[in-house]
């Protein structure tokens, strides 16, 4: 009996997960594929890039600087024992470009912008603003969801690039200005080991994939929220948890695909 119950529970969970995926897919389809309207969408998009991207910039830049500095400090302590502290540059740059830039940006983005998107959409739903758009014969998927989605997808790779660039300067700051590594050696070894297609383009691709997934999860959670305060707070938490897990799991997959030899 207990086994049957367990199997039934598994079945129910699976069906629920599949139907959730279906609804999320339909939402995205309705928002970005069906009859896009670029003329009306552009001002909305700009406003959302402001909310999602510009307002996340400070936390991204500050985090990038500190993470670059910490990486350099820790890396220096290890490398100096082997007398190879000049390799600090590639260590910091490759770690940031291949992993930390896209991943930490996505995690910060999920916490800063993703949760805000979910809460905002949840509030719009519970205060009937979405219904009221529908009754005005305006598609809320087009008016509300689509601009936020594109804003997320455009902003996050840019944020990841800024994070990485600032992080490398943070590493430079610690390695060269503080620990006294030769500046020329730092840059030349760094340049010798970074390849723009392998590292920079993959950084952008990773970040784009994360942007897609994080924004999608945030919007889905907000759009299908249970419209009461408890539902909104739950949805916001779920956004951060699910988006973060999705980012980490996807990162493993993408890394395996991009850098496996």
């Amino acid at each position, binding site marked *: 009996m207990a086994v049957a119950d367990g199997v039934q529970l598994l079945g129910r969970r699976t069906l629920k997960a599949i139907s959730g995926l279906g609804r999320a897919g339909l939402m995205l389809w309705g928002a970005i594929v069906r009859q896009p309207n670029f003329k009306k969408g552009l001002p909305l998009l700009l406003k959302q890039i402001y909310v999602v*991207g510009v307002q996340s910039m400070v936390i991204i830049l500050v985090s990038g600087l500190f993470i670059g500095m910490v990486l350099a400090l820790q890396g220096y302590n290890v490398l100096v024992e082997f007398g190879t502290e000049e390799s600090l540059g590639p260590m910091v740059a490759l770690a940031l*470009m291949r992993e930390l830039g896209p991943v930490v940006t996505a995690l910060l983005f999920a916490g800063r912008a993703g949760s805000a998107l979910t809460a905002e959409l949840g509030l719009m739903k519970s205060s009937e603003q979405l219904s009221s758009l529908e009754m005005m014969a305006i598609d809320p998927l087009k008016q509300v969801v689509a601009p936020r989605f594109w804003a997320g997808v455009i902003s996050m790779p840019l944020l990841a690039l800024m994070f990485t660039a600032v992080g490398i300067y943070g590493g430079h700051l610690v390695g060269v200005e503080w620990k006294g590594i030769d500046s020329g050696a730092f840059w030349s070894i760094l340049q010798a080991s970074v390849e723009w297609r392998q590292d920079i383009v993959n950084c952008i691709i990773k970040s784009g994939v994360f942007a897609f997934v994080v924004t999608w999860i945030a919007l889905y959670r907000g759009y299908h929220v249970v419209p009461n305060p408890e539902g909104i707070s739950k949805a916001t938490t779920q956004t951060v948890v699910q988006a973060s897990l999705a980012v980490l799991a996807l990162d493993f997959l993408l890394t395996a695909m991009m850098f496996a030899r």
Partner: protein
Amino acid sequence: MSTRKIELFVGMFLLAGIAAFLVLVFKVANIEVQSADSRYQLTARFDNVGGLKVRSPVKVGGVVVGRVMDIHLDPDRQEPVVTISIDRKYSFPETSSLAILTSGLLGEQFLGLTPGFVDDDIAMLDDGDRIDDTRSALVLEDLIGQFLYSVSNKDE
């Protein structure tokens, strides 16, 4: 928040993103914006390429003059063949030699090019040419093995 202000900030945001991209591409990856005809390719055979990798630098007296483009095994002779591409600015006589060197004890491996002597009947290397005088990578494990062998021989 007026529309103008928002547009201004978004514009600045996009510019900052593009600036970060350009910094990464030019300052960090240091890609040379050069077309294919500004470089020429040479091949060289080695007994052992050790830890040499595609994109490892080719240096002359410590100056990077080119990069490794390809490493593959010649199926007939069972020998590694390395293709390098050299900047057109530099030309070397065909008596030049290539050696696989290591930066520091544990550092990355790179190709050291030693220019040969120039004489009237010595041509300069050009696209598709092969450098015959090569020295393979020093494999640390082999060295240690030889050293231990010679030490134990002396003891007897």
